[in-house]
């Protein structure tokens, strides 16, 4: 049965075409090449470390590994591949076997950690302080068990979050709560609870009885039997958690949870949201206004978009705010000064996966209406770009409000600078986005919260583009720093805007040409169904 599922998935994937295969190969090489580099670094570190350092560093490394595996998918809302139960539940497949496949699929969100573990194991086996080759069983058994523990825990967490995040209204609250859980301790630490350092992490990494500590002890031959027993208990608990959550997911009706409540009596007056959606019509004529309005309405009702929107303003705060509140160095002073710009540009990049990188993704087969209606495709692309900008500026508005509430020190001048900088960056991002949208269109399911426009490997591709897209604006800040002059900053920014405008125009022309000549392939790509395994 497992073989049949995997074969069906492989056969489903082969229709992606040569172009997609090459793209996938390149992004895969970049992404996993980077992690091979990290694994090599870990190898050399593990090979040379003394016993005392290993005792200190190994639990921290294992905790970081667990966090990467469990937390990064949550933070990036990118849960990797999973079984599409809508396609599999009709068959008489035992749930235990389906669960096994689901657990193995969790490797898709943590394969990077398998590479790093391999580097660590290779290093330890060549390190006399860790026991060398003779200690191979002692090193490998706990680490492999820890990998299984991570797979099981990730499976349970994924199932739990998938259910929670698919409920109307609940998902946004869950995201905010998760972010608060991550952010508040950091803010508390830098605000005075532990003013000298973020040492809480180090303490957590060495609390006896926790799985990473047990693994570390077992690998280093300390209380080996007891440590393995603790690890086995944790793994069994994770298996129970994963299996229970998987079973609950099987019985869960996501469609019912997401259903729109029926209005008892539709009001003849437009609601406040309706008024908001109609604002573009004040500035633009039809069909541009109609397309922007459609885009805004659709995005606002797309669970995946709503979650990323919430992340757009909360992630930036989570990463930067504790540093800014710390105010311990000149570097932090610079961060504080440019806080709003930094978090806004970050929000612009994050929103890309649900807006401009794959702008036809949520339309799926309905994209044919853009080709069937009597409007040039350029109008559609322009409308989608404008809708993306509106969303980005909404995000900036929320961020401005939050920074004002948090007293981070945002002036009117800084707000104006943020609006300008975001606008200039957007020229470059949208230019690249239009090109990628017509060359690599991919159908997305609007009601699947965990599916994004970009896989981790696609994000690798995006990571290559981000420095390019942000370089002109970076140069403007460099000019201000080097010449200590606002005029220099404004001049370089204006130049960057002019260049960006030119690039946007060229990219639009190229995208329209591609969309016109390749419309058939675009329609096919966006109408394509997936195999028994869905991935992002």
């Amino acid at each position, binding site marked *: 049965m497992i073989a049949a599922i995997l074969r069906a998935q492989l056969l489903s994937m082969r229709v992606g075409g040569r172009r997609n295969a090459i793209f996938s190969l390149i992004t895969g090489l970049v992404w996993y090449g980077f992690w091979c580099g990290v694994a090599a670094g870990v190898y050399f570190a593990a090979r040379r470390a003394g016993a005392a350092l290993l005792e200190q560093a190994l639990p921290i490394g294992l905790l970081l590994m667990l966090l990467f595996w469990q937390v990064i998918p949550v933070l990036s809302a990118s849960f990797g591949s999973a079984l599409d139960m809508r396609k599999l539940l009709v068959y008489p497949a035992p749930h235990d076997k389906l669960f096994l496949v689901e657990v193995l699929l969790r490797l898709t969100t943590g394969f990077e950690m398998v590479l790093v573990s391999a580097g660590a194991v290779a290093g330890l086996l060549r390190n006399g302080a860790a026991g060398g080759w003779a200690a191979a069983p002692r090193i490998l058994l706990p680490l492999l068990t820890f990998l299984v523990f991570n797979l099981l825990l990730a499976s349970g967490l994924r199932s739990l979050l998938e259910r929670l995040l698919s409920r109307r209204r609940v998902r946004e609250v869950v995201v905010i709560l998760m972010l608060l859980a991550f952010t508040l301790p950091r803010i508390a630490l830098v605000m005075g609870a532990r003013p000298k350092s973020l040492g809480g992490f180090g303490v957590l990494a060495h609390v006896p009885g926790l799985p990473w500590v047990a693994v570390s002890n077992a690998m280093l031959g300390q209380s080996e039997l007891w440590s393995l027993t603790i690890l086995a208990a944790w793994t069994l608990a994770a298996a129970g958690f994963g299996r229970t959550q998987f079973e609950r997911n099987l019985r869960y009706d996501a469609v019912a949870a997401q259903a729109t409540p029926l209005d008892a009596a539709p009001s003849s007056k437009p609601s406040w949201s309706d008024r908001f959606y109609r604002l573009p019509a004040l500035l633009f004529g039809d069909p541009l*206004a*109609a397309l922007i309005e459609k885009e805004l309405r*659709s995005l606002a009702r797309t669970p995946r978009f709503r979650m990323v929107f919430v992340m757009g303003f909360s992630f930036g705060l989570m990463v930067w705010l504790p540093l800014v509140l710390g105010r311990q160095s000149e570097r932090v002073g610079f961060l504080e000064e440019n806080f709003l710009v930094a978090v806004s540009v970050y929000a612009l990049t994050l929103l890309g996966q649900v807006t401009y990188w794959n702008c036809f993704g949520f339309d799926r087969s*309905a994209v044919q209406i853009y080709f*069937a209606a*009597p409007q040039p495709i350029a109008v559609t692309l322009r409308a989608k770009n404008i809708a993306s900008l509106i969303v980005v500026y909404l995000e900036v508005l929320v961020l401005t409000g939050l920074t004002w509430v948090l007293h981070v020190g945002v002036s009117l001048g800084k707000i104006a600078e943020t609006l300008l900088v975001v606008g200039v960056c957007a020229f470059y991002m949208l230019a690249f986005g239009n090109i990628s949208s017509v060359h690599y269109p991919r159908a997305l399911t609007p009601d699947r919260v965990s599916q994004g426009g970009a896989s981790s490997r696609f994000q690798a591709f995006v990571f290559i583009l981000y420095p390019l897209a942000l370089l002109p604006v970076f140069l403007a800040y460099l000019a201000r720093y080097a010449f200590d002059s606002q005029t220099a900053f404004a001049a370089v920014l204006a130049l960057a805007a002019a260049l960006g405008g030119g690039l946007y125009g060229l990219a639009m022309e190229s995208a329209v040409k591609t969309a016109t000549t390749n*419309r058939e392939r675009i*329609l096919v790509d966006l*109408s394509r169904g997936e195999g028994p395994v869905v991935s992002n």
Partner: protein
Amino acid sequence: MSSPAILVRDLKKSYGSKAAVNGVDLEVPRGSFFGFLGPNGAGKSTTIRILTGLIPADSGYIEILGLRLPEDEMEIKRRIGLVPDESLLFERLTGFEFLEFVGRMYGLARDVAMQRARSLLDLLELANDRKIIGEYSKGMRKRVAMAASLIHHPELFLMDEPFEGVDAVGARLMKDILVDQVRRGATVFLTSHVLEVVERLCDRIAIINNGTIVTAGTLEELRSTGESLEDAFVRVLGAERQLERLDWL
């Protein structure tokens, strides 16, 4: 004499070495209810997609409502209503919002589009549904797609399986609307696997097989010996019953 609604000569479209449409000739008179029939994979949907400009033809001459395709593509699009095989509905809009959007895409003023959207939803018995289209049943989706094809009052309807998945009451309603449109001078070009529907509605028929038109004419011409359309269809395609080969079933 006015030009035909659709005039196609030697239309060709291939996918790799497979010819999906292989030299199709078609003439659909204005004001006719035209049934375009054929077995699965015969080239019906490909032909319709070419006629709507969704995919380009490899070669051939296409004239729609007296206008050349692809030269007059935009003007042709303004004058046709389309119900394709795959849904062109935006799932996160309500039926009303979608119809208003389509109306504006076809150049209607917002208030006109809204007013027509309301009337069409009333007519197709969807007025009380405030759900987004993603939550619609298949039949409701077809009805909204039908409404969308009507909103700009087109002269020619191109419909791929418009009644598929629609209940009897909904299908009856849709048929009545189309018959009324033809009575008012519009042309309907539709594909359907339900031959009884075609038999009842269409005055002219063409049958396509392996990308080539195998027969075309009036319904009476096709049923020359008084047989049913189904019998004529099977006879023209030379299909045989092969059930006896499944001896294990």
